[in-house]
């Protein structure tokens, strides 16, 4: 990897290659050969870390720092204080509500589906259809999903028109497609299958011995479920829930296509600030982004802690 050598000299020494400088300068003849070798080895990974650093870590860290800097370059918390204004507070509340509602419902229904998929003793086509539909649906979060729901329950949607003609029932007035609950329905469309896919490996780890062991001790099925199976599965299930939460919280495309900028959600608000070349208020946008990244970090950090716990029981499976 010769290109890494030039990248190294451009003044971006990577922390993984601290020994490179003296070795390259030839200033340390006493340095053991293996240190030079280790430095070269670490150097080979530099393009990768540099890529992530330049295009992901640096922009996000600088943005976070900007949130704390005022107009004259002084340290300030004014940008975060501005997030307390009703509009921004509402956006965070809406986003958190949306994420909680869709991930609680999504986790429960998705788990039931996962259980059904594991316990299916039926036709193979059913398993295959459900698996592939779940795989596709869990990836849908973009405009196609939004238009699917507009076509389904929108003002001129198939179900809306059908209900209107048959029963005179105005679905569109009960759940407008651009409302909170309309977006909830669309989000559930990918949250439920996502939980199914996430829960299947955990459910496959359930051992028959737990049931046998519990029963031989005189416990009923319900008791075994609540005192053995669920506690063991809890880390992976809660981890799945947290991923669903983060997934809904960071979702932009579907909500944007369904409600335009009418939905007061954090990602939509950030998008509103960023669209166009001129930024209304850089500090405020930075604070919004920082708040969002903080919530994502908490959710995903908790998840990785839980996953470490979960692997305790699933080692080897």
């Amino acid at each position, binding site marked *: 990897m010769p290109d890494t050598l030039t990248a190294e000299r451009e003044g971006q020494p990577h922390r993984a290659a601290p020994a490179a400088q003296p070795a390259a300068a030839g200033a340390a003849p006493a340095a053991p050969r293996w240190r030079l070798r280790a430095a070269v080895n670490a150097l*080979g*990974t530099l*393009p990768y870390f540099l890529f992530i650093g330049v295009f992901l870590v640096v922009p996000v860290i600088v943005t976070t720092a900007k949130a704390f800097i005022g107009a004259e370059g002084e340290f300030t918390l004014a940008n975060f204080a501005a997030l307390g204004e009703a509009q921004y507070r509402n956006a965070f509340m809406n986003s958190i509500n949306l994420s909680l509602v869709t991930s609680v419902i999504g986790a429960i229904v998705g788990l039931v589906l996962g*259980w059904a998929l594991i316990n299916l003793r039926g036709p193979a086509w*059913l398993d295959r259809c459900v698996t592939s539909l779940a795989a596709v649906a869990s990836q*849908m979060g973009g405009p196609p999903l939004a238009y699917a729901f507009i076509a389904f329950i929108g003002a001129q949607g198939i179900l809306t028109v059908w209900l209107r003609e048959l029963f005179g029932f105005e679905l569109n007035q009960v759940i407008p497609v651009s409302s909170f609950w309309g977006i909830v329905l669309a989000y559930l469309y990918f949250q439920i299958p996502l939980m199914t896919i996430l829960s299947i490996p955990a459910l496959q780890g359930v051992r028959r011995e737990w*049931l046998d062991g519990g029963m031989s001790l005189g416990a009923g099925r319900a008791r075994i479920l609540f005192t053995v199976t669920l506690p063991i599965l809890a880390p992976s299930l809660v981890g799945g829930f947290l991923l669903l939460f983060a997934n809904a919280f960071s979702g932009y495309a579907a909500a944007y*296509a369904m409600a335009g900028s009418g939905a007061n959600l954090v990602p939509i608000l950030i998008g509103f600030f960023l669209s166009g070349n001129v930024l209304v208020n850089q500090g405020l946008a*930075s604070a919004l982004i920082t708040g969002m990244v903080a919530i994502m970090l908490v959710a995903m950090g908790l998840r990785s802690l839980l996953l470490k716990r979960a692997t305790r029981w699933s080692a080897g499976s």
Partner: protein
Amino acid sequence: MTQPTYTPSPAAGALVDPDLLAPFAQQDLSAEPRPFTPPAPSAPLAPLAAKRSFTKHALPRIILITFLVVAILPLASVGVFGFTNVVDGFTIAPVLELFGEAKAVKAVTNTVVLTLLTVVIGYALVIPTLVWMHLRAPKLLPAAETASLLPYVIPAIALVGGVNLVLRPLAPGFFVSLYSLLPFYVLMTLPFMFRTIDSGLRALDLPTLMRASESLGCGIFTTFFRVVLPNLWPAIVSGSLLVVMMSSGELVMASLLLHTTFPTLLVELGQSQVRLAAALSFITIVGSWLLMAAMVFAGSRRGTAHRATQFSI
């Protein structure tokens, strides 16, 4: 709810079947002075068994078929909605007409170019790095893996914010170009590319392969292209299908960095011609289903069918 897989083993009947209980009863008698009594009385045997067989056999099917029907309804309606209109019923004329326009052709071309380049550049970054790390710097693998997961934690919208606030002022000219999206598309798909290649390499026993190849007189590049790469091919193929699906459907960065791709065209059409947007959505959904089917097929030959999404890591 969560019950283990059912196999008609004696244990299920052992609660009540005296013949099967006999050995247990004897063991218990030897261990305890009290005679063993089965925990469940034998009276509700028949209804209980019927209930079990319902939960075991019928219930999963009912749940799954309900899911299929409910999940297909929006997809079917987007197809019906998109390809019909009040005047002439079923028609594909608007779609054909749209693809006659330069604007649509450009959006589709942009998406195709971006997607292909994302796959190529992503793997060109990930494969050599990972091969190098597995051979020369395995201690850095955990750090590299953690770094590869960062794009999951930093949402695309936050990343775009950072790009607009930090990187754009540094190189305004670069962000005018469509190709400025590439680094971010590679980042977005990085967690998945990293995982597939990493697990592919772990299954290979790379040092042995390298030594064997060296002992036969191959240089490091020959080994890489003629031994390592062909062995990774299945992982690359099934992985790149998901990368294609993700980057061809990406909206946030394309629209906020002001580029025209297929998803931004879709949203633009949605403002005025919802039915046309719906028709294109239907085509997209069918296309991604085909991609996913191809991926499950490619993956099942390697026995990793469950690695079916970016999140099952």
